[in-house]
């Protein structure tokens, strides 16, 4: 299997992988090496290059989702190597298969997110409405999210029903999820904070919640609200709030 084929298969299966290519200096320009997190490799950069050290760098960069060039000494001089990380895609968990969720899944997919739509109510979470979602989960949100959230997860709560939102928040806010946002007016949000505080949720966790969700762009339709939500998530992905910094 060629490096290109192996990369194609890994990307389709959403498996993390990292590729190194000699791009200049000493060494065979164009030579490639692919590595997986377990250390398994495919291809070769040439006998002159320190492959063990390079694979170590590749895996460290994959873990940081970082790509860039590195220089390595060879008998014939320095070789320049481009290391490109392909981390698995971020996943957006959308709780509440409501109207806003339909355009939100569309936008999230364009931006490279895997999408998971969660709703225990069978009438909402139908394959007809969400044929474009990667995964449709007919479960209560706390069951559906339990054990699935990591630092590559983004959680969007759209139910504005405390029976569904609160259990989801109790799983999402203490988790390593990168972003947690919830729909609802400022007064709905104030009541939500009071309820969760009353149940002993720590302030640091409550402060993580983006609510009312989305950037203020004045939208009213489900599609416009989905744009405001996805814009806030793009900002969060880049470490910003989208409210005017930098």
């Amino acid at each position, binding site marked *: 299997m*060629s490096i*290109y084929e192996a*990369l*194609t298969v890994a*990307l389709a299966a959403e498996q993390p992988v990292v590729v190194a*290519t000699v*791009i*200049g200096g000493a060494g065979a*320009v*164009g030579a490639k090496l692919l590595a997986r997190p377990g250390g398994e490799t495919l291809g070769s950069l040439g006998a002159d290059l320190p492959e063990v050290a390079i694979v170590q760098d590749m895996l460290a960069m994959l873990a940081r989702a970082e*790509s*860039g*060039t590195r220089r390595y000494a060879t008998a014939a001089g320095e070789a*320049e190597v*481009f290391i*490109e990380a*392909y981390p698995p895609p971020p996943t957006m968990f959308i709780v509440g298969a409501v109207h806003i969720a339909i355009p939100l899944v569309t936008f999230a997919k364009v931006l*490279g997110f895997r999408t998971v739509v969660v709703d225990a109510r069978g009438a909402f979470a139908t394959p007809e409405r969400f044929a474009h979602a990667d995964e449709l989960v007919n479960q209560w949100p706390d069951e559906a999210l339990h054990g699935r959230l990591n630092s590559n997860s983004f959680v969007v709560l759209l139910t504005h029903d405390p029976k569904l939102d609160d259990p989801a928040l109790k799983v999402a806010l203490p988790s390593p999820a990168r972003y947690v946002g919830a729909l609802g007016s400022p007064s709905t949000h104030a009541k939500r904070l009071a309820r969760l505080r009353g149940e002993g949720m720590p302030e640091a966790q409550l402060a993580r919640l983006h609510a009312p969700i989305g950037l203020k762009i004045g939208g009213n339709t489900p599609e416009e609200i989905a744009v405001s939500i996805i814009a806030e998530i793009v900002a969060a992905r880049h470490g910003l709030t989208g409210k005017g910094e930098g």
Partner: protein
Amino acid sequence: MKDVLPAIEQWRARGERVAIATVVKTLGSAPRGIGAKMAVSSGGSMAGSVSGGCIEGAVFDACQAAIANGQARLLHFGVADDDAWDVGLACGGTIDVFVEPLDP
């Protein structure tokens, strides 16, 4: 890479050869980040991008050359670029682009 794969598969399915250009280094303000890719087919099709449109023309030519001669090559683009490509970047940054033929 994922954004250019469907086009590459289509071109290869109809028997065309392909070269891939990748942004490997940027300095200063650059329109696209490291890893951004553009793919070009021997039939003259193009997918993806490596800048905001400033250097795609030169990169397209380099991809065609890579398909023809089978050689990979590192290109450098800067604001005061006086190399053979005669292309400058309005944004004031510099971009290194690696162009490589995809094995048939």
